[in-house]
């Protein structure tokens, strides 16, 4: 996966609360056996008419959304299904970070494993971001700081281990495999 250091981008805002992973990518796109190309199906039912034409009012279809890497979403984004296709679709579309006041557990875990940075902020910061769609923000992963255009710096929590993996673009499998002896010993002892 792509290492993350500092993300500088304008934001796209989807203020709805409880955006579930069925909205991020509907189940009919899950019969794929690869992870490529899912960006085309991102928010498919919000983004396209039945005949495939883009819905004019949807935020991702507006010209100013092009190239944005930061999605600001309402409380509890990513609830529902564990489908990792949701972060795959967001990444394939071009997003690198998701900001909300609350991010559902499995979606958060899946995002971290693919280089999509989940950023949880307080209500006030979130309220400002929702009120200023398209704001140019900077997400500094090494410093765990979100910087707003007015100069405010908002700290966010990211676990040291996850930050290390994200900054180096590595997954956790190598780390798990390095514990093979401990796993062998556990199996002899307990299983």
């Amino acid at each position, binding site marked *: 996966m792509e290492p993350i250091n500092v993300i500088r981008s304008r934001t796209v805002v989807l203020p709805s609360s*409880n955006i579930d992973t069925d909205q991020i990518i509907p189940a009919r796109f899950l019969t794929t056996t690869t992870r490529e190309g899912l960006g085309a199906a991102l928010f498919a039912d919000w983004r396209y008419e039945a005949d495939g034409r883009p819905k004019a009012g949807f935020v991702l279809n507006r010209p100013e959304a092009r190239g944005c890497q930061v999605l600001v979403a309402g409380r509890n984004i990513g*609830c529902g*299904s564990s489908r990792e296709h949701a972060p795959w679709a967001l990444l394939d579309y071009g997003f690198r970070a998701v900001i909300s006041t609350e991010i559902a*557990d499995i979606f958060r875990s899946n995002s971290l494993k693919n280089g999509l940075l989940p950023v949880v902020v307080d209500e006030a910061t979130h309220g400002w971001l929702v009120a200023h769609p398209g704001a140019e923000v900077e997400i500094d992963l090494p410093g765990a700081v979100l910087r707003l255009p007015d100069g405010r710096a908002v700290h966010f929590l990211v676990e040291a281990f996850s930050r290390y993996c994200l900054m180096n673009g590595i997954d956790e499998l190598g780390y798990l495999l390095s514990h093979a002896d401990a796993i062998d010993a556990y199996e002899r002892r307990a299983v």
Partner: protein
Amino acid sequence: MSAKTLLEKVWERHVVVPETPDTPAVLYVDLHLTHEVTSPQAFSVLRSRGLKVRRPDRTLVTMDHSTPTDTAQIFGGKPITLESAAKQIRQLERNCADFGLDLIGLQDSRRGIVHVIGPELGATQPGKTIVCGDSHTSTHGAFGALAFGIGTTEVGYVLATQCLLQRKPKTLAIEVTDRLAPGVSAKDLVLAIIGRIGVNGGTGYVIEYRGTAIEALSMDERMTVCNMSIEAGARAGMVAPDETTFAYLQGRPRAPQGDAWERAVADWRTLPTDEGARFDLAVRLDAAAVEPMISYGTHPGMVIPVSGRVPELPGDAVFARSLEYMGLEPGEALQDKPVQVVFVGSCTNARLSDLEAAARVLAGRRVAPGVRMLVVPGSQQIKREAEERGYAKVFTDAGAEWRESGCSMCLGMNGDLVPQGQYCVSTSNRNFEGRQGIGARTLLASPATAAATAVRGRVSDPREFLN
């Protein structure tokens, strides 16, 4: 020794490498359930890194999500209609062959929804850690296991190492006092719980369901409750194992046998939460006050009693959009609302007692004209039992469709879909926009409520059929 919760006891037994401030724990996984939709990319990672499956004996593989429920496509030699689904099924067959995994395949008599067959085969046991690339893995917590959904990357980790990196979750006790009233089911209870704590009320927690109302539930009912823990945001829900648990498991193919059974039960008796153990958060609910429940909106926290009215929340744009999608007005009563589709199935409510509850209402009656009713058993074994007990005949005599097992219309991946704009009373777990088909309007309810609604063609309280 300090008093411990059920979660803490199960957690401690599975720590391979303890957590530190810098690193999560390496946690051992006893049982890995795998299916066709969330595994292909994980097997690709194993291939690209030259890795094997560490413990094929701890990996239970089947197909359920995109798998057809049409008998002709399973047993009749008719090609699978959805080409992408057929490809996914063939890919799983190939992956199992390449990596030496036993597959409970398309025509296997043990096949079914992964969360139904794990318990049915006795593979789900108290004290185990169980994971699956599916959020409804929480179902298995009904046995006192720590069971939770994972993503496909983690499916790969477990295939390769039988372990995951995890932080110990917080604990939420949901104590349900008294008993459920007659005609009120475990589904109504869990919908009431989600309505109370909200769809994010359990985020970051593992729930332990406790109290007299929970102890009185059958295993089927406990599975229904634990299944929907994720709809409250909790990755896992647990119930302490007891005599009900042991009676369910005894004699099942993968349960311990003979002396090993006695030793296992003695061990399982040590698992329940100790007196005085502390939970991070506690909620109390009176079961006797729960009525038959139904959802009205586009997430499972938007629920009311069947006899209730849609709330009024002026000024809430998200709420207004949800009602617009559902074609409902604030203050509207749902009872007697005409519906076009009724679905009895899913890992929430497709076990034998669920089918029995629906059959009791439908016996000697017919599905109302203009209503399509689909009954999809949770497993092939449940299908056979329902046929032996006459429930299947009740359904077909009533005019309902009786299918092969699978996830079916819960998520509409296999072509079992609700048409645009139609209302479907569904015993499944999610009423998200488009979940059962583009523009489909899902009303979540119990099997008895679904059956009563099918008979009248309108949303109905099942209790009028049970007296």
